[in-house]
């Protein structure tokens, strides 16, 4: 498993273990992401991908090991402190608030650092949201809710975005649109950790892929090696 040369990774996860109550879900996750990279976590259902994101954000029951963001240890910190370091989380279930309208949802996450996108820029990226800014957040279509969930973490100035299955349950044309948006965000300099089940989608946007199985990272495939590793990846993912 070779990791490309990196001066200092933006995020370095080492020996991360996590528990939900009594059940031991992560058994030692190791990976790292360089500044400006787009890295995916691939793996079957229940492999521990979502738990890895939740552990990085500090919203699991118990975790041990090391998660360093910009060299700073975050294991042992509360999630509101971790978020303030510059990490932003877009959960799998999207987490749109029904008692808030679209714009209130967009404005909810506080700005943690300078350099985030303005509301105008976000509306330019997601014109649908501008049209529906006074609608109740949960009245939007699935695709629009996903765009809202991504859009609202772009304002905060966070440099690392954790996106959990942004394409899940969406029509192909919307998946394509989300892909364009993710590429735009990467061009803008965001570092992105993407959890995906949809490998074909992941392959179009990512620099590197980590494969997660039974709560461990078992392999890493770089963009250049994807073609020759297809057989191996398909075996891992069971597709």
């Amino acid at each position, binding site marked *: 498993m070779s990791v490309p040369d990196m001066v200092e990774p933006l995020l370095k996860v080492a020996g991360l273990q996590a528990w939900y109550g009594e059940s031991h879900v992560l058994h030692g996750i190791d990976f790292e992401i360089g500044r400006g990279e787009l890295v995916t976590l691939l793996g079957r259902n229940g492999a521990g991908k979502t738990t890895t994101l939740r552990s990085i954000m500090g919203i699991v029951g118990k975790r041990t090991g090391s998660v360093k963001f910009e060299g700073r240890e975050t294991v042992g910190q509360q999630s509101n402190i971790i978020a303030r370091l510059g990490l932003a989380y877009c959960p799998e279930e999207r987490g749109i608030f029904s008692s808030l309208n679209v714009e209130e949802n967009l404005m*909810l996450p506080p700005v943690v650092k300078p350099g985030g996108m303005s509301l105008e820029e976000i509306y330019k990226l997601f014109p649908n949201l501008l049209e529906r800014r006074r609608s109740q957040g949960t009245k939007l279509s699935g695709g629009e809710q996903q765009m809202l969930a991504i859009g609202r973490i772009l304002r905060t100035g966070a440099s690392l975005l954790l996106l959990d299955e942004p394409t899940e349950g969406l029509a192909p044309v919307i998946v394509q649109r989300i892909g364009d948006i993710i590429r735009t965000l990467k061009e803008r300099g965001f570092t992105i950790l993407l959890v995906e089940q949809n490998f074909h989608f992941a392959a179009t946007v990512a620099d590197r892929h980590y494969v997660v199985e039974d709560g461990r990272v078992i392999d890493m495939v770089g963009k250049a090696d994807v073609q020759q590793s297809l057989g191996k990846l398909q075996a891992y993912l069971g597709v």
Partner: protein
Amino acid sequence: MFDFLGISPPALFGQMLLGLINGAFYAMLSLGLAVIFGLLNVINFTHGAQYMMGAFAAWLLLGIFNVPFWAALVLAPIIVGLIGVAIERLMLKRIYHLDHLYGFLLTFGLSLVIEGMFRWQWGSSGAPYPSPIPGGYNLGFMFLPTYRGFVVVAALVICLVTWYAIERTRLGAYLRAATENPTLVRAFGINVPRLITITYGVGVGLAALAGVLAAPIQQVSALMGTNLVLVVFAVVVIGGMGSIMGSIVTGFGLGLIEGMTKVFYPPASNTVIFVVMALVLLVKPAGLFGQTK
């Protein structure tokens, strides 16, 4: 003057005013309960005791330090609100992960302890509090004591300001979002535990504010909140648990219904609110303004 179904206008409007005043207290108290329940998941049974503490704080401030009513209107809610903050930090925060029943039992027990202490110190017979604005107006069809008119208006203002703060401001958006999904709100960088403490303090402060407003109307006594809080719980259930506007509209509305019942069929006036509660629960279990999740 005309008579309406054999009721003289002064009696009718007099009861209407009384109903509105009671409704004003129902609204202010159920508002605080709704806000607290929404975010803390705790049915704050101490609310009646905290209302009583507000009245006592004003009475003691006047008796000991000669602090006038208008200053007490600000000071008493702050003092009682801070006591609320201490209760939240020391006790309530330990039980959020448990069933509603535990919060209910804890706050119920606390209200017994607090009311017992006040009764032990000051007895259960009430002490009078002088009206800060004596006098009144003869409106022709009835006599309106100025202070009572002021209470109705003040309660409306307090309710609308609270509604605005929750529904239209950024802090209110945090509160609404944290009510739905505290974990995610926290993962955005918002200090949810502190938000919870502040919310409880403000909710308790609202109860104390209602207590100060009640002091010149009622006797200041250790048990003044006990009966009231039962009715207020019925109001919250009728309005819909956690609904802000529901609490306000239902509070005033039920006060009026109760007042009118006193005019037309006095024996039912103590039970009418509970009858309404039973009917509403049969037809709309989530309450008039509640949302089924």
